Structure formats: structure tokens, C-alpha cells
């Protein structure tokens, strides 16, 4: 038998650092050129102004509270979606009649634009609960579909082996089901983190809760503080990249721990 699950090694085809620096420098020059062409700070700020505003924001006493507030709420929604997605996937994989029952709302959630949910949710949710709900909705169908896929693609030969040797249910869960499903789950985590982060911040722009990056974006727009708008956007991008890196690290660590990257030649 061959190891049926392999993961692409994240970052294996990484662009060399000098090329990345050159690419970043090129786009910064384009940005600077566009700034010179527009010539109005109200519409487009320069990269340097954006950096200045970013540094100024970072020393503001409430900056880290705002970042922590947004991160906390969105990650709470993410983990809520993760846990519920896994539980529903376990149920739909175990009892097939539940699949159509859950696949319909999941597909609807996946196909509905964030803005529609946001406006509907505003009717019964406000403040912090709103962005938690939006992040939860973004990650729930993703985790559900991936984990369901993993659970329905378990290797029947391994399950048969477990049956013959009368492995206890807990051992089957720990040694066969969990490692087989983990790559599917990690892939959902990787995609879902970035996805729910952006949707969560968009939700904050609509709900305007206290201590939220989205609220700061909204205020910057209202008060025509274009420098702050760019600086907060940079914060969102940097945090998104950091979350992505965390997810990649998690993915890498999980895969290495379970030796899922090795193509089995003799198993």
C-alpha cells in the first residue's frame, strides 16, 4: 500500500529573497509614481506617509487593544466555526441521511456574499458579536466540507485491518481517522484563517464595534484621514500575513509530525 495522503510542502517553491525584495521595490516605486501623478494626499498618500502614519498608530496607547480586540473576536468566530464544522462533518459522514440536510444550508452560506449576511445580521446582532458571527459563517462551510471529504475518504483497507485486529474505537479514532483527516482539516484552517480575517474586518466596518480595526477604517474614511486609512489597511495586511504564516507553520508541523509528506514506498 502506498501512503494515500500526501501534502504539498508549503513554501517549497519559495521565490528567492532578492527577487522578492526587487518585486516589492518595483511596486513601491509604482505606488510612489501614482502618488506623484495624482498629487493629492486626500486621495492617495505616498508609501512614506503610510509608513509614518503606521508608526504613529503603533505608539498610540489604544493601538494594541484595537488589534487584540479584532484578533480576539475574529479568532473566536474562527474557532467556533472550526469546532462546529468538525462536529457537523462527523455527523454527516456517520449518518448519510444528514448530508443533504446540512449540505443545503452550507452551500447557501458559501454562495451568499458577506455583505448580505452582514446586513441581515445587523438586524439581530450588534457590536462584538457581529464580527464573531461573520467570521464563524465564513469558516463553518469550509471546515465542514473539507473534514467531511476527509472522513468519507478514509482508507477502507486500514479500517478493515482495525476490524480484524479488534482495535478499540479510541485507537481507530486516534491512529487512523484523525491522521487521515488532518490534512483536510489543516488545509481548511490555512484557507479559512485568511478568509475569515478579511470578512471579519469587513463586518467590523459595518457594525462599528469598540476596539476594532474595522471601526478605525470606517472612522478614517468618514474623517477623510487617508493616511490612517492606508496605515490601518497595512495593519490588516500584516496581520493577515502573520495569520497565514501561523497556519503554514501549523500545517507544516502537523504534517511533519504525522509523516504525511513522505510517499510510502513499502507500506
Amino acid at each position, binding site marked *: *500500500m502506498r501512503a494515500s495522503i500526501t501534502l504539498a510542502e508549503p513554501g517549497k517553491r519559495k521565490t528567492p529573497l532578492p527577487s522578492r525584495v526587487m518585486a516589492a521595490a518595483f511596486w513601491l516605486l509604482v505606488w510612489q509614481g501614482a502618488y506623484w501623478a495624482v498629487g493629492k494626499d486626500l486621495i492617495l498618500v505616498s508609501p512614506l506617509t503610510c509608513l509614518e502614519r503606521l508608526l504613529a498608530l503603533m505608539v498610540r496607547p489604544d493601538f494594541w487593544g484595537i488589534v487584540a480586540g479584532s484578533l480576539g473576536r475574529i479568532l473566536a468566530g474562527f474557532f467556533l466555526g472550526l469546532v462546529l464544522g468538525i462536529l457537523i462533518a462527523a455527523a454527516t459522514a456517520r449518518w448519510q441521511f444528514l448530508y443533504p440536510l446540512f449540505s443545503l444550508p452550507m452551500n447557501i452560506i458559501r454562495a451568499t456574499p458577506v455583505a448580505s449576511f452582514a446586513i441581515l445580521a445587523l438586524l439581530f446582532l450588534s457590536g462584538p458579536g457581529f464580527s464573531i458571527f461573520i467570521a464563524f459563517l465564513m469558516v463553518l462551510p469550509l471546515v465542514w466540507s473539507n473534514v467531511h471529504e476527509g472522513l468519507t475518504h478514509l482508507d477502507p483497507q486500514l479500517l478493515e485491518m482495525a476490524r480484524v*485486529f479488534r482495535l478499540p474505537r479510541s485507537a481507530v479514532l486516534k491512529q487512523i481517522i484523525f491522521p487521515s483527516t488532518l490534512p483536510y482539516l489543516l488545509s481548511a484552517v490555512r484557507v479559512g484563517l485568511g478568509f475569515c480575517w478579511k470578512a471579519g474586518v469587513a463586518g467590523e466596518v459595518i457594525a462599528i464595534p469598540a476596539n476594532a480595526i474595522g471601526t478605525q477604517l470606517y472612522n478614517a474614511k468618514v474623517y477623510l484621514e487617508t493616511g490612517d486609512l492606508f496605515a490601518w489597511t497595512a495593519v490588516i495586511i500584516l496581520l493577515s500575513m502573520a495569520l497565514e504564516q501561523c497556519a503554514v507553520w501549523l500545517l507544516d508541523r502537523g504534517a511533519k509530525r504525522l*509523516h504525511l509528506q513522505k510517499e*510510502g514506498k513499502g*507500506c
Partner: protein
Amino acid sequence: MLKLQNVSFSYQNMPVLRQLSLNLASGDRIAIMGPSGRGKTTLLHLMAGLYTPQEGTVEGVPSQGVAMVFQENRLLPWLTLEQNVLLPVPEKKLEARRLLERLGLSGWEDRYPGELSGGMARRGAIARALLFDSPLVLMDEPFQGLDEKTRAAAAEVVLDYTRNRALAAVVHDPSEVKLLEAMVFDLTSQDDLCSVPKAGIPFDEK
């Protein structure tokens, strides 16, 4: 111990086994032989309780499970060789080390199946079955991929570990029947009622 009575089995409308009877007691060894597609693996699966016959009965499948070497190794790629061997019997660590040493796998205990050769993984699958406490041992082409010398050494270990157990092994090579000191249970013609060891023919007398 294990009793198959008038067992018939078909895949959809294709009969594979017909009116087959077999008694296997502790200490019996049978080598199941026959051309491809005659139902050798199916018979093992019936004996393991994995399949239910359409006709006839299978009695005496050990409730504690069956020690089985499948046609494929079925080792978990994310567990080391030793962890795989210990999977059904986690408490037998010392015995597992000894058994792996006897099978020529000393020093490979902490390697993953993907890092082993086909022959090594095969011996790992044999070790997992032998270490498992079951009065019934079933092996589907246990020595496939092993060279002559390794095959003989592995067969000796199999003999030692199955002295007081019932063994049924699917084999293709007649020399393996001799190595396992088994009676031949030939599926070439299934029309007659077969019973082992009474109807079994020792390899040397065939």
C-alpha cells in the same frame, strides 16, 4: 475451532466459492492454493469474519480478533515500524523488539513504512500478526517480495509463533508449503466437500 460448513460465496452473480467445508483446529496448518480468481483471498476473508457467506455457516471466528497478514501490508504510514507492530498489542514492547530482531528488522524499529523496502514492510506486517494474541492466524501470500533466504528465516519465525494456533496461509509457491509444514488445501476443484486436515494432503505426499 474454526468451522466452515457448506459455504458458498459470490461476487454479484459470479460464484467464487461453492459448497465449501473446512474444519481448522488448534495446531492445524493449511496452505491454500489454487489458480488466480478461485477465491483464496475470499476464503481468508470469510475465515476472518470480514465477509458473510451467502450460503452455509462460518463458526468459531475468535472473538478477540484474528491475527492477519493481508495481501497488502496495511501498515499505517504515520506510525513507525515498531508502533505499527504494537498497534493491536501496545503492551508487548519487549516481545516486539525480539520479534523484529528475529525477522531481521533490528535497527529499523523507528523507521516509517515509507522508509522501508517492500520486503521489510512485509516482514513488519508479519510481525504485527504474529505478536497479536489470537488462536487463528491468517496470511495472504505472506512471503511475497522476500528473497529465498529471508523467506526461509521468516517462515521459521512463523512456525515458532504458530505452534499452538491454527494457521491458514494463501501461497503460490509449493516450496512455501514445505517451509510452513502445512497441508495443502487446493481450491482448483471445489466440487467436493473438503475437510482439513482429513481431506488435506500433506505436501510431501502430493
